[in-house]
């Protein structure tokens, strides 16, 4: 549970500001309840995951680890630095990483920031061939390598969802890639399993 919560926190506070996400355009767009205001509404409650549209990177930002007087985490908008730092050479990145990007551990194959992040602001993306990817279409970005997953996702065979199987009767909320996977470290984090069904005679 703590693992999941941490992951959700990372996704909500770190990933969303940096990356964008929308729903699969080929299917009717789900309406997210209670999450209209932004990523803050993406709650992980009662075992359910509701898809949320990411907040603008302007509103949220990198968690600094500090808290303000009311106990809320202090965030720094990405633009604060990335408007100025146009090119991210290794040295600058490393220095910045030590102070600001402590939460971002890049464990995603042999990738660098620039594999996905687009200059100048790092809030938009580019495909491997340099084609810009709009903020919301990040799953195309993932799909460059994970084409089969994307295919499964688009056909409803991958990714959690809630709501109605019968779309004539109601809406359906679908998770996005980043609801479950941290793009910087997409390996599934360990979670403590819920208690199992006990046998009446086996305690």
């Amino acid at each position, binding site marked *: 549970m703590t693992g999941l919560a941490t992951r959700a926190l990372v996704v909500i506070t770190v990933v969303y500001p940096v990356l964008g996400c929308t729903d699969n355009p080929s299917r009717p767009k789900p309406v997210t309840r209670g999450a209209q205001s932004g990523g803050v509404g993406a709650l992980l409650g009662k075992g359910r995951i509701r898809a949320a549209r990411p907040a603008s990177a302007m509103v949220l930002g990198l968690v600094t680890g500090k808290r303000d007087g009311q106990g809320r985490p202090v965030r720094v908008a990405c633009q604060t630095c990335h408007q100025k730092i146009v090119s991210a050479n290794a040295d600058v990145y490393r220095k910045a990483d030590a102070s600001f990007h402590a939460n971002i551990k890049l464990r995603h194959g042999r990738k660098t920031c620039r594999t996905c992040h687009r200059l100048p602001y790092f809030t938009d993306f580019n495909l491997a061939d340099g084609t810009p990817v709009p903020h919301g279409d990040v799953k195309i970005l993932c799909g460059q390598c994970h084409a089969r997953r994307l295919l499964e996702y688009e056909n409803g065979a991958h990714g959690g969802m809630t709501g109605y199987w019968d779309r004539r009767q109601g809406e359906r909320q679908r998770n996005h890639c980043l609801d479950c996977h941290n793009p910087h470290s997409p390996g599934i984090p360990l979670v403590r399993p819920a208690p199992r069904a006990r*046998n*009446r*005679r*086996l305690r």
Partner: protein
Amino acid sequence: MSSDTSSSAKTSTAPGTASEAGLSHWVAYVRFLWRSVLLATDGTLLFYAWMTVLTAVAFVGANAWAQQVAEGMALTNMSNQVSWGLYIANFTFVVGVAAGGVMMVIPAYLYRDERMHAVVIFGEMLAIAAIIMAMLFVTVDLGRPDRFWHLVPGVGQFNFPWSMLTWDIIVLNIYLLLNLHIVGYLLYMRFLGRAPAPRWYVPFVVISIAWAISIHTVTAFLYAGLGGRPFWNTALLAPRFLASAFISGPAFLIIALTVVGRFTTFKIDRRPLGTLVSILKVTTLLNLFMVVSEVFTEFYSGTHHTASARYLFLGLDGHTALVPWIWIAIGLNVVAAALFLYPGTLKNRRILVSACVMTFIGCWIEKGMGLVVPGFIPSALNEIVEYQPSVIEWRVTAGIWAFGLIVYSAAIKVAIPILTGEARATDGDNGR
């Protein structure tokens, strides 16, 4: 009982004591039943003591069952994995006893062995008592005994012919009626001092022989038809059930007849006993042979499906709860089989009875705990949950056995004076 009265009523056209006295069989049969009740409740101090002890045990069982009903089956040690336990184990076994009880009939009627006739009635009465026990064992195993009426054809929903349990209900009830009719008719005729008319009992006797085989076959099919339980899913199950039925029935009869001979004036010939022992000679060996066949098939192939057999005989992953049970059973059966083969056994009543007791207990374990429980271990999804009966289960089981013995003792108590001619229809019974 309706079949008895109706069939006997039809005989009233024939000249007989009752009709001569202008008394219909309806009245005479009721008087016969009342007389039977009096006979069954009257006896020596020893008889009263015996019945009191049995009644006390039966009430302890009834009390345990009442608790189980009130609190739920949680008082038993059964689980979602081992969903049948001691009750169904006993059910399976006593159905065998019921079938075996009628084994006396085959030499008596098919081979016209006149001397067997006197003891046939004891076998039929054993069948009655055992069927009643079987029904009680099923009842106490039900989670909702208050919904028993759902099983009544016409009133409830009877899933016939798909469910083997409905077949079992049908064959057991008909078997009970058959035996009630045969015993009731033969005793009634003896009571009236008339020779029984063959057409009113011989056809039923022949049917009951086939039926005895059918009840245990159907009971075996209850298990053998379940593809998800490889331990039971074997064609050898019905023959094995029959073999052990034809051990437990005759073995119990030998014990019962010995006790009867000891405590009453009714003495049995050695000849029928010899026939019973000859049956036992064959069936104990046949039963062991089939156990060996099963064991070989299971252990030599060694597939996944043999996990239950491994659990039963050797234990599985350190779980060995049933291992002592089955080896005790096999030990008892082997010793008993050897004793039956030894010619001196028939001459020495003590050895004969101990051999019978041994093989009876051996079959009880083998066809009960050794057959029903390992079918569930490991479960269909390979979980190992062990099972040992709880105190409540033991009490209920003891209670039902006590009740079965009460029924059998009372039946013998009624039958003996009628068979020896001590109890006869008097003038009062024949109408005034």
